[in-house]
């Protein structure tokens, strides 16, 4: 073996077991790197590369299309204007309110212009399960509703869930103890299915999803909404 200082064969000094282990690790690393390169190519680059071959399609007509030599510009402009008008007419000219249940905000509109905005409280998305297998979901329904009724000094008739929620015995349907005055504020607007826009004594919760489905507002906002919205006014909830 040549062991001169200028010509050292390092390999001969490595334990063959360690050498084999080193090779194995290196081979695995090479193969693994290949997989990693492929993985990132597949996930991030293959699609953009495939998209490079795309060419903008030229204007061609299907055989079954209606054959017109020319588009009548005047007629087309009129059609577009009519459609635009039809679409604009979908926004009510009467007052309406839009309620955002994700962030518990409302916007009030009059003459298609926003006249007020503020905090409200909407459904908590709680699923209440009673021990007798009944259950209720406290959410504010989304979509378009109409003001079906307006009352001042509303009185709340406590439903069954309000007793179940507090672990209280449920009184009979017509029990006078069900009626509570003063908890819904000075006004209430009904939007159907028992859902109301009303006031609250829990003002610190405004802006939070805490209700059983109704829309709660502070006194000033509620008064403005009550005075602005009429019967049949639209309520948009999203």
């Amino acid at each position, binding site marked *: 073996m040549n062991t001169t200082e200028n010509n050292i064969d390092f390999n001969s000094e490595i334990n063959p077991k360690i050498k084999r282990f080193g090779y194995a690790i290196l081979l695995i690393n090479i193969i693994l790197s290949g997989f990693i390169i492929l993985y990132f190519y597949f996930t991030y680059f293959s699609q953009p590369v495939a998209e490079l071959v795309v060419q903008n*399609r030229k204007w061609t007509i299907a055989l079954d299309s209606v054959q017109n030599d020319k588009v009548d510009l005047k007629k087309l402009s009129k059609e577009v204007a009519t459609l635009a008008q039809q679409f604009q007419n979908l926004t009510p000219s009467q007052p309406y309110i839009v309620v955002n249940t994700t962030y518990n905000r409302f916007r009030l509109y009059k003459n298609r212009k926003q006249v007020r905005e503020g905090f409200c409280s909407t459904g908590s998305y709680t699923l209440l399960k009673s021990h007798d297998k009944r259950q209720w979901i406290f959410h504010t329904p989304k979509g378009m509703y109409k003001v079906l009724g307006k009352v001042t000094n509303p009185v709340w008739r406590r439903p069954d869930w309000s007793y179940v929620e507090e672990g209280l015995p449920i009184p009979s349907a017509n029990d006078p103890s069900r009626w509570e005055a003063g908890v819904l504020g000075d006004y209430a607007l009904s939007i159907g299915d028992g859902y109301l826009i009303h006031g609250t004594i829990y003002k610190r919760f405004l802006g939070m999803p805490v209700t059983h489905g109704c829309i709660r507002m502070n006194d000033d906002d509620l008064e403005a909404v009550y005075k602005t919205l009429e019967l049949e006014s639209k309520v948009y909830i*999203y």
Partner: protein
Amino acid sequence: MSLFMRKPIKITLYTTAILVVIVAVTYTILKVVAFQKAINNVEQYMTNELDKRKKTIEWVAEPDSNIKSLLIQKAYYQALLTASKSDSIFLAINIPDSSISLMIKGVVAHRAKAEQVKVSPLFSAINPPLLIQGLSVPFTISKHTSTIPKVPLMVKIAPRDTSEYTPDVIPDTTDLDPVNFILELKPNILLYFYESNPSQSSDGFNQFKFDLRERTWTVVQDFKRISKLKTPVYKPYIRFRLNKKDAKVIYRAVPEHGQVILRLE
């Protein structure tokens, strides 16, 4: 001879490199084929939808830009009016002004501005008159995935009596969860809504994880198809980056199988 120049290592290195290139090229070629198939798929879907509604393509020669713009507007309004007939909330996406509007019966309930929009080149490969007319029909959401629950439901077991009753605590309304979601429309069109400027580093990492998981899922599905000697699927997409609050509002409000209107030009 250096350790790194050993023959087996060299062979492994070259073989791996060649295999990587072969697999990558094959997959890319299959993706190109998938892309062409996707064009046919979208065109077929649009043709069927137009047939269902007895709508026809009514022009023959390539129109000038004025007429083309009017045709696009007409299709957009037609789609808006069609979607407004239904009771549910729908999404109107206007790419030229990067706006995403939540509408109820044609009334704009919420409007968001996307900070970035990236549209799949597939849309420019569709026959333009068919694309214009095809967009006059709303799309339907077929699937959705997200980093937040669609319905933030909390289950509460009623107390047996007043001694078990505890008043509700103030709900946690801090927006800590990152908001990223994907809506899949028929026919396989993907709308990605990603939170722009994730507020915390963990949000950014979660977004990367969510995105990588989706991409990995696509690749896995592709390889499943390839193993059955089928071409992979190319899904046209539109990617949006928008404000976290807007993203959350849109995801929570849009119905599971709601309608989406697209205006691309």
